[in-house]
């Protein structure tokens, strides 16, 4: 019983490490996002909204990964 629990704990730790690695890999992606102020005018405004939307999705994914790591 004790052996089984230790193995389970080791696997959970490995999973937590994988989640943490995914979080770490996500951070540099922010720097790759195009400059949201690239264009002026209506096209620039629409472009900014889309880039902001993409950034929010990455924020949400990062927050979910952090929450998952805490739960593990």
């Amino acid at each position, binding site marked *: 019983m004790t052996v089984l629990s230790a193995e389970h704990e080791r696997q959970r730790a490995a999973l937590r490490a994988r*989640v943490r690695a*995914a979080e770490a890999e*996500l951070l540099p992606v922010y720097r790759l*996002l195009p400059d949201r102020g690239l264009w002026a005018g209506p096209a620039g405004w629409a472009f900014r909204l889309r880039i902001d939307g993409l950034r929010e999705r990455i924020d949400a994914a990062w927050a*979910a990964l952090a*929450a*998952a790591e805490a739960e593990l």
Partner: protein
Amino acid sequence: MTLEVSGGGSVAVETEDLLGARRELREVAQRVDGIHGQVRAALACTELATGAAAQVLARAENELADAVREAELLACELEAAAEAYGWAERVVLAQQQLLARLVGPVPELGALLVALGVSAAQHSALTVGDPQIVAALRHLADAVNLPGLVVLVRALPGDALEETAVTASPVTASAPRIDRAPGGFGDLAKRIPPAQAGQPQLRVEKYTLPDGEHHWIVYSAGTIDWSLEPGTEPWDDTSNVVGVAGGSAGSTRAAIEALKRAGWKSGEPVVPVGHSQGGIVATAIATSGVAPVPAVVTFGSPTAGVRVPRGTVDVAVEHTDDPVPALGGSPRPLVDARLLVREATPADARGSGVLPAHELTGYARTAAEMDVSSDPRLVAARGKLAAFTGGGPAEVTLWRGERLSEGQAAGSGAGR
């Protein structure tokens, strides 16, 4: 760098910034997709996780999948938006040209005067590089019947716009100089002879390929003499007006004569390159049918209204604040396949003359920017140039054209 490249392919307008943003978004999509794969693999081990952990991991997986889709979609939409913008621009140009043909040059002349007045009031001086003046000049050029104007002016007393016979002589009397092949557009611009009185107006390069075939590049200077009455200098205003009107300009005939005297044989391909009037010469060689012309490259030339033969890569570089290209009118928007590269003159490369945005030094800077551009059409054009020279070396000769008086022409047998 804000190069704008249009024509010559499916995407009509595309900036270097746009290309960069599209590249970044594709990189984002690729990276996030990799992370998404890791999280999906982690989710396969949910028996290890508590219920809450599995739930948030699933949410992360969904958000990452959406982010990948969003980044890929945005990258595609940037390309589609650019294409649509290009077509809209072409349709507007076509409408403006049609209107100009219908109502004649009077409204365009009025618009030019208004633009001049507004610019003078704004800047407390006349600024011919003002975008509104450049646009008004282009519309006026569309509306003017230049060949008819040439006929009218020639009917006036005096010799204004009267063409003469020309000749071309080598400036380098000894054996041709050996030079490396041009590495790109920057080298092409730098090799154009400067427009200076009494100096060579032409540079001719001969390439011998491994199969023994000869290829040629001819570089032509810009206007040297601004008088309308022809003297001895063929790179004058008579050649400008006659050339833009589609006539046989003295400078063009001198360039062809120089090629022949340099050893060019009928059927051997030529790439003509020119700045300002040199671009008129280059385009005229391409349209004359005198030689196969796989590519023509012009810098700041009033040649927008000229259509080169199908199969010729036509690269036209124009500064948006240079009024000279506008004098050639608008490109024929719905049929043209020319590769038009537009940029405002780089601030630190503006000349000090009457037309600072028109000077060759500024165009050489823009050409160097074209050499580092990743626009696929510019990459393809650079590849075509490299294949044309075969990597060099070039045998270089410099040439000077001269107009001949009627007596000299009769003696030499040279024609107009």
